[in-house]
């Protein structure tokens, strides 16, 4: 008996030793420089929601009645997802500048001027906040970004996935529709993720309105610039070009010299040259919210150079410019809509002249 035990223990011991040695070996193998890259970690991992979105169109001859039936189901689902969540529980946390709230998906619907109370004109861009629904929430531990974050992270943030504007589910792939299963909302046309502090997290299916933002505060707007295709240096980088006459031949819109030879003998990285212009994401930072329309969920922000053409999708969030963070606490996680509350249709910043106000008269100082 004892012998048997001994053998067992010995064998187990030997196994553990073997394991250790194997581990060492494997460690050695893993650490060896030569074979480090044999099976490297994926450097870039797509987010989980980045799946193929639209289904390839098939010309299925579906009868009229059946098509109506499919529409009916979609309509029923739409009603359900519009009433998904009416109440958002407040956790009674008061907003501080460290807490990051969620952003929203909006549509740029045009530019028109507003006048200030001092009589000067100001160009403003109108952003329509779409019917944003919370699709997913990743807690700070749960969220795995596609790139390794640097080791020191002071302010760990979670991530919220928002969807806006319901689409026809039969146009989307099964994978894409699967993203919406958890939240119970109908598949949406647009998806966007926003980093949020855990205090700013929202329940799944919750909606966000234009009153998420407040008049007088500043926002950043991220959008895709207008695609201008392959452009020369004059349009792309604002070069001056060369004279039209005085013996200039065939170099009227060219960039000219791009650098010397000699020891360098190459083109420096970053040299401004012709190439594709536009169709990249840009952020317009620190835009003031001047006016709100609660009926159509539209906000007016200062400036007319917001990336993207009219009717394009943009992402709006609280500004990250430290000098323009608001001093008064913001509604956290978003503004709770009270049904009995009497909300004015238009909310103006104090500097804006309201069109239905009497004509401006200047007084002598």
């Amino acid at each position, binding site marked *: 008996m004892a012998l048997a035990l001994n053998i067992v223990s010995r064998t187990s011991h030997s196994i553990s030793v073997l394991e250790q040695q194997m581990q060492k070996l494997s460690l050695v193998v893993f650490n060896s420089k030569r074979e480090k890259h044999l099976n490297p970690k994926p450097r870039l991992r797509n987010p989980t929601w980045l799946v193929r979105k639209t289904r390839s169109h098939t010309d*299925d*001859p*579906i*009868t009229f*009645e*059946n098509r109506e*039936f*499919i529409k009916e*189901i979609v309509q029923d689902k739409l009603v359900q997802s519009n009433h998904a969540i009416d109440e958002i529980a407040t956790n009674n946390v008061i907003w501080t500048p460290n807490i990051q709230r969620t952003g929203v998906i909006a549509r740029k619907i045009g530019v028109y001027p507003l006048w200030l109370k001092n009589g000067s004109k100001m160009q403003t861009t109108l952003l329509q906040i779409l019917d944003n629904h919370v699709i997913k929430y990743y807690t700070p531990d749960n969220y795995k970004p596609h790139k390794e974050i640097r080791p020191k992270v002071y302010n760990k943030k979670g991530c919220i996935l928002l969807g806006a504007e319901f689409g026809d589910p039969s146009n989307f792939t099964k994978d894409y529709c699967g993203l919406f299963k958890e939240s119970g909302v109908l598949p949406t046309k647009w998806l966007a993720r926003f980093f949020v502090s855990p205090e700013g997290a929202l329940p799944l299916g919750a909606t966000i309105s234009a009153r998420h933002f407040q008049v007088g505060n500043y926002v950043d707007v991220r959008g895709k610039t207008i695609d201008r295709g392959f452009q020369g240096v004059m349009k792309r980088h604002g070069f001056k070009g060369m004279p039209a006459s005085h013996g200039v031949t065939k170099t009227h819109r060219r960039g000219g010299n791009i650098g010397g030879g000699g020891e360098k003998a190459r083109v420096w990285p970053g040299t401004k040259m012709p190439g594709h212009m536009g169709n990249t994401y840009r952020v317009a930072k620190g835009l003031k919210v001047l006016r709100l329309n609660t009926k159509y969920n539209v906000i007016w922000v200062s400036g007319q150079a917001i990336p993207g053409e009219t009717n394009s999708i943009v992402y709006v969030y609280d500004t990250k410019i430290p000098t323009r963070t608001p001093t008064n606490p913001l509604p956290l996680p978003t503004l709770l809509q009270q049904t009995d509350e009497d909300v004015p249709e238009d909310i103006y910043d104090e500097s804006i002249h309201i069109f239905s106000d009497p004509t401006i008269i200047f007084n002598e100082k």
Partner: protein
Amino acid sequence: MNQAEVSKLVSQLKTTVNPRLRKFRNPEGPEGRLDKLRKTVTALIKHERIELNYPRADEARMYAERLISDAIRYGDTHKTTMEMADYWLVEKQLIHKLFKVLAPRFQNYDISYTRLIRAPRPYPGPEDLKAVLELRGNPYPSLRPNGSYNRNLIHNVLLEEAKKAYRAKKYAEIAAKIDAVETAVGLNTNSQTDVPENDEVVAKEVEDKSTKEEK
């Protein structure tokens, strides 16, 4: 952001209008472009169905629609419309057809006057997209496939069954709700009726889930 022109009034086209017009580059310049298009428009009015390259068909379609809509709107007594018809229809006998045949035909149409269908391209051959452009109400047989047997296709049969099941469930739910309300009215106690209703709903959901799993 310029002002819209107000000197002329036009009817809205019933087709989608491209945001930009195609150039159709040619040695005669923009004049040549219109020349090309008016040949196509004339052919369309004449033959009522033509097969051609897609871009030209798409472009010519808009012009043909405009011409017909003006003919309906202003009639043959309007000078500018007559000038337009004279320019756009190379064969002059077609002007009569436009005002006497097509305008009455499309008088009460709520949809577009023309139809644009993508056609298969010859293989092997040039890779240009092909299309068929036709006037609605033409005497030729339809280009659409015969849909009378679609009902018997498998996905339609399945959908038919699904529809029956869905409707039955829906009506049952509505009936249950009405019953609940009636009992509530009968008892005159709102607070008590809420509880069993909720229970029912929960029970139904559970049932649904279990049936789904079985499937």
